[in-house]
């Protein structure tokens, strides 16, 4: 399967030129770029590891691309995403978030059904990858 989180997951994988164009757009809006990675792609795992703090004073997209490249080099087999943070009053949130690296094989999720009386079912979504300890997933 292919995890479709992020703004552009239904498109072919973005090239570095295309990633840079999106970063340029975000910087032009005054947003700060942050690079994050994880080996736990659960849909509600909101806190991916920060590769570094968001780059608030960065103006040049090449600088952000260096961070993407650095993160890819250190974590080539996991998910990496680029986030853009907007500090404008009334937003103060992520405005763009897209995946720029993913494992060669994505095992997907197990849907566990726990029958809890009547016809009701309690659902748990578990990533097959997280059956292994951190660091050993997607080896």
């Amino acid at each position: 399967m292919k995890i479709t989180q992020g703004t552009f997951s239904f498109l072919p994988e973005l090239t570095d030129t295309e990633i840079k164009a999106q970063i340029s757009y975000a910087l032009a809006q005054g947003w700060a770029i942050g690079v994050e990675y994880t080996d736990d792609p659960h849909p509600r795992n909101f806190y991916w590891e920060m590769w570094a703090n968001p780059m608030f004073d960065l103006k040049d997209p090449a600088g952000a691309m260096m961070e993407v490249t650095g993160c890819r080099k250190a974590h080539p087999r996991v998910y990496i995403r680029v986030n853009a943070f907007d500090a404008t009053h009334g937003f103060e949130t992520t405005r763009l978030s897209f995946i720029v690296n993913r494992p060669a094989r994505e095992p997907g999720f197990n849907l566990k059904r726990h029958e809890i009386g009547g016809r009701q079912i309690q659902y748990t979504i578990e990533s097959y990858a997280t059956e292994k300890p951190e660091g050993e997933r997607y080896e």
Partner: protein
Amino acid sequence: MGSQAERYKSGVMPYAQMGYWDADYVPKDTDVICLFRITPQDGVDPIEAAAAVAGESSTATWTVVWTDRLTACENYRAKAFRVDPVPGQQGQFFSHIAYDLDLFEDGSIANLTASIIGNVFGFKPLKALRLEDMRIPVAYLKTFQGPATGIVVERERLDKFGRPLLGATTKPKLGLSSKNYGRVVYEALKGGLDFVKDDENINSQSFMHWRDRFLYCMEAVNKASAATGEVKGHYLNVTAATMEDMYERADFAKDLGSNIVMIDLVIGYTAIQSMAKWARRNDMILHLHRAGHGTYTRQKTHGVSFRVIAKWMRMAGVDHIHAGTVVGKLEGDPNVIKGIYNVCRESFTKQNLEQGVFFDQDWAGLRKMMPVASGGIHAGQMHQLITYLGEDVVLQFGGGTIGHPQGIQAGATANRVALEVMIKARNEGRDIWNEGPEILAQAARWCSPLRAALDTWRDVTFNYTSTDTADFVPTATAS
């Protein structure tokens, strides 16, 4: 006006002379200000008509009463302070009326509207009356909860940023069994939509009772979430005959792990506010389907404009509101729709007469409502939809998903690919308004579901003249 004794002599007196017209009145920051379109009966003076509207929507009755003198009646009288002819409309007038804050109960849409759109709309000396816009003072807004979740928090919960959300309404809207209904939900979500939606009249009929529907829909939502790794949702419509029934249904939706429930506008303002409080208490997104609004928002001379309804709903506390598509099958002039979207989504809405927005409106930190565009839209219009409606919107392709020749999943995929490719192009600085069809055609080369969608619906448009349009047009200046 003469002495107080003269003023309170028993009998009938023009409203304007009773104190409901004051051309010199300067509205206070704490006043509620209304902009009415008034069509007086033949021979009725427009100023007297405006004063009558002010009177009948505040303290007046048809005759003088001495009991006014037991009160600080000057404070409680609404004051018409400006009357202008409507451009190009013989016999119609825009009237500004100011209301003191003390006239209204804190945090109550029911109380606000009982005055403002109460008796006065049936008043005989007027042929017609329309509430065009309202300026709600910050002091009053602060007594309302506002959207239970709001755009920002909704996106954070869903973990979806940078693009419109995608939805669809299950079709056929009536008749499917619960199990078949859930099938549609699963296919659409797995194919790429973020949300699927009950229609407004899906409640608990003999072909599908609500508990059954909720159970199958949540199976579909969770299965699709596991298949894609995304947060997904289905708006479970909890609209019912009584408040108790609605709470029971909403509680069940929560027990099943739904992240969103839905209500219809026809349940009434008080029920909507109750559900908004319930939604805030229960971490739930609250979707409002505006069923019924067309009966009083569409005609320009009489009723309440939808931008006012949108303001009331933002105060009442819903998170999603159907607000027009411009290009789809339902009423929607581009300028008027833009004004309504701004009312939903901005922290401060500026006066814009071309968009029908008569007042600056400071939203006082009230969260933002997500507008929903639904009704006769398809993937081939993606560039137009994004240009008109922007990014913070739910685009709902019901027929445009379920009617896809290759199946529901393919329909959903076509919409999602069209959306992402268009957002990507826009961010890259391309002129999507003009290049849109080419951008879609290019994506259709590698995405066969999109190709089939374009082939099926490419030429479908709904080009009819809008009824609800703005009265002001930009003045041409010499270039």
